[in-house]
């Protein structure tokens, strides 16, 4: 286990950037009495991140996704308002918040999935890799290939497992059978579902279980080799075992990918993420290291929410 949890011996540059931050800064405040369960979560989270340095919110240069006063309107109604946040590469960033607060809206804004909805209007700036995604000249195809998405409900196409995974590579023009085979196998292995499906790749993807389907969707997203993976409540339809497997998966994937996950499950956010953003009523209330958000939130709303006293 430890071999997996320890960061690579040669940590990526982004991580080293914040090594200097004092690791014990906010420990003392953690003594505020909380529900036992909360402590347990943090204990686990703490345990997992024990070897990791704590960081402060980073400066902009290294951010892969950068949102500046970004708002998105559904007609006259705002889905999200004035969001300013930077998302760092090779990390898991969690977005939490009560239902209807704009988490999905923000997430779907990043790869412009909201374009499907009529009368949608964006304001401010939302850049991926320095390219404003709402610029008219953004290459949507490339954007979506580099910013993959996994949806709340697994949505495999009604095709075979193989065709599901090969869908993205085929879009990119890969026709070679051997190459496709290779990509499919790699992606399924990366999504930790290879062993379960390798015998029958011709089977319809709809015949898989919910958890398998979700991992298949992750594999499908990975097959296009994205740099960022957006996950909108990927585990909400799954049982604890399937959830556990997907969390493990994220743990592995974050070394190579940048992951943004929306979740209602606070334990999950605490377990898997390095950063957590708390949204409320379409606004970003607080964005900080996960440990800080859960143990020592800076805002009253955040505290109420994470301690379950919300509403």
């Amino acid at each position, binding site marked *: 286990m430890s071999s997996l949890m320890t960061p690579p011996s040669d940590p990526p540059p982004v991580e080293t950037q914040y090594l200097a931050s004092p690791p014990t800064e906010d420990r003392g405040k953690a003594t505020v009495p909380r529900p036992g369960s909360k402590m347990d979560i943090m204990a686990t989270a703490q345990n997992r991140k024990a070897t990791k340095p704590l960081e402060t919110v980073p400066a902009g240069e290294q951010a892969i996704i950068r949102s500046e006063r970004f708002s998105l309107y559904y007609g006259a109604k705002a889905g999200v308002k004035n969001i300013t946040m930077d998302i760092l590469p090779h990390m898991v960033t969690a977005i939490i918040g009560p239902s209807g607060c704009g988490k999905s809206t923000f997430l779907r804004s990043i790869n412009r*999935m909201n374009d499907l909805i009529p009368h949608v209007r964006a304001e401010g700036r939302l850049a991926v890799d320095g390219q404003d995604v709402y610029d008219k000249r953004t290459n949507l195809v490339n954007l979506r290939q580099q910013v993959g998405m996994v949806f709340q409900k697994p949505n495999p196409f009604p095709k075979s497992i193989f065709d599901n995974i090969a869908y993205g590579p085929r879009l990119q023009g890969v026709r070679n059978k051997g190459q496709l085979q290779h990509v499919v196998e790699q992606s399924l292995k990366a999504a930790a579902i290879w062993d379960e499906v390798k015998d029958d790749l011709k089977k319809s993807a709809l015949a898989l279980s919910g958890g398998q389907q979700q991992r298949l969707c992750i594999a499908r997203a990975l097959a296009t080799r994205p740099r960022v993976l957006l996950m909108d409540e990927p585990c909400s339809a799954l049982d604890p075992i399937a959830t556990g497997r997907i969390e493990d998966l994220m743990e592995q994937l974050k070394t190579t990918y940048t992951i943004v996950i929306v979740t209602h499950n606070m334990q999950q956010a605490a377990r898997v993420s390095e950063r957590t953003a708390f949204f409320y009523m379409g606004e970003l209330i607080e964005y900080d290291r996960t440990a800080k958000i859960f143990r020592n939130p800076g805002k009253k709303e955040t505290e109420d929410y994470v301690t379950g006293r919300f509403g």
Partner: protein
Amino acid sequence: MNLRTRGALDRVFTVLAGLSVVLLTLVLIGVLGPMVYRGSGAVLFGGTVEFRKMQRDLFKRGGSEALDAEIAQTEEARREVYSLIDTFRKGIDIEAISDAARRINRDFGEELRFKGVATERYTELRQRSRDIRDQLEAAFASQDINEIRTDLESVLQSADDPAFKGTGAEGYFKLAKDFLNAAEQVDLSKHHEYKASLQEVEGILFGSTERPGLLGPRPGGPLPPLAMLHYGATRWDQARQLLHQFKYRQFWVEAEPNAPLVRREEPRAALFAGTSLEPLFGYIQANAEKMLHPRFTVYWQYFLDDNVDSHYFGGVGPEIIGTLLITVLGMAFVVPLGVIAAAYLVECTADNWVMRIIRMSINTLAGVPSIVFGLFGLAFFILFLFPRLGFEPKPCILGASMTLAVLTLPVMIRASEEAIRMVPQSFKEGSLALGASKFRTFVTVTFPAALPGILTGMILSLSRIAGETAPILFTGAVWIGPMAKSVFEPTRTLSRGSYGIAVEDRLAMMVPHNQYGMVVTLILLILVLNAMAIVLRSRVFKKLKGQ
């Protein structure tokens, strides 16, 4: 109002509403039941030996030694019928036997000349022959049995004369004996009635110039021009009807003054009571099966065969082919148009005036009466478009299918639209999120997922246009005619045929099973298509629910 009456009213209402649905079901049964029952007779019936003969001759099917043997057997059984009738005829058909007597006289003269008999002898024998002939003719013409007896006895005296032995003149004595026999038994005053009745009997048994009889024309005789008259009752149900007609004479009487005539029946055998023909009635009733060999037959080739003599024989093969040709060609026009339009309406939604005009047009089109589509097809496709494309401006398969395509366009668009709308948004999102373009997403994800639904819509459109008649009346369907050799010729169809066979065809009215067979084929075709659509639809629902 008190509670009791309110409750009672409520119950009455519920029952009434229930009755309305019961009524619907009854209507359905009442409409389909009789037609399907009678139409099934086109395929399932008791086929007689005549049917097998007809199949062999007209459709080159099933001729074999077994059939020859069967025909021989039935002919064997029929021989008695022929001989009974011939015998009777000798007694009553005065012209025929008088002719025969005259012929014998002539032949006998020739015979004598041929033998080179001496002149005096020749003159004497000729004179005697002439006397005998005259006596016979007098006897035949007489209605008094005593007179007949004396005449005939004097003729028969010459029977032993060596001069006549072994010559053609012997025929005189046979005639005389037969006639004496017959005359002893019949009422001579009824000669003419017998003759008319015999003609009727023969019409029923051997067919008339109007309609076929029970046994078909007598072997060796001249064949009537129409093929349908070459055979007897090909079906046992027909045979039974003819047997009934044979057994009972029908006539109309005025039961009470100024009232419509009513039909009465009387046993035909009574007409021939005491004559040599009387046994015929018993014989035929007893031996009908031996003479016809009815056997349960599944004539599935009904759906392949062309008809003979305006649907008297044969099936609806060309009509089925014509219907399929027109509908399939029509679908080839309408499916791409319908699917593309539906895709546009679903995927490129914008609630602007263009969209409203399109929707309004589709609704209007759905409401246009089918006969107006016929007018339009005639005026636009055939009279306007065809000459400009270099085709002959006449009704043809192409014109009909284009007209039907236009007619079913709204059905197709609505069905495909619904099918495309049913594809979950998540499929599209999944594809778009992988970097597929909108077009790519539609072609690779949405369309395949909507395909079963679109197919359902297609089948429904197909079944709709397969039954349409009015639009193709002047654009490409005909009632009689050869099989089309290209799409530029008109064709027969089941729908046009159903109309024609119901009201335009005199011969077909004699064979209700073929009338009903045509329309039932059409209904079956359509119901089968509909059933396919329903099965497909429920499959799709299950599949989409599964996720």
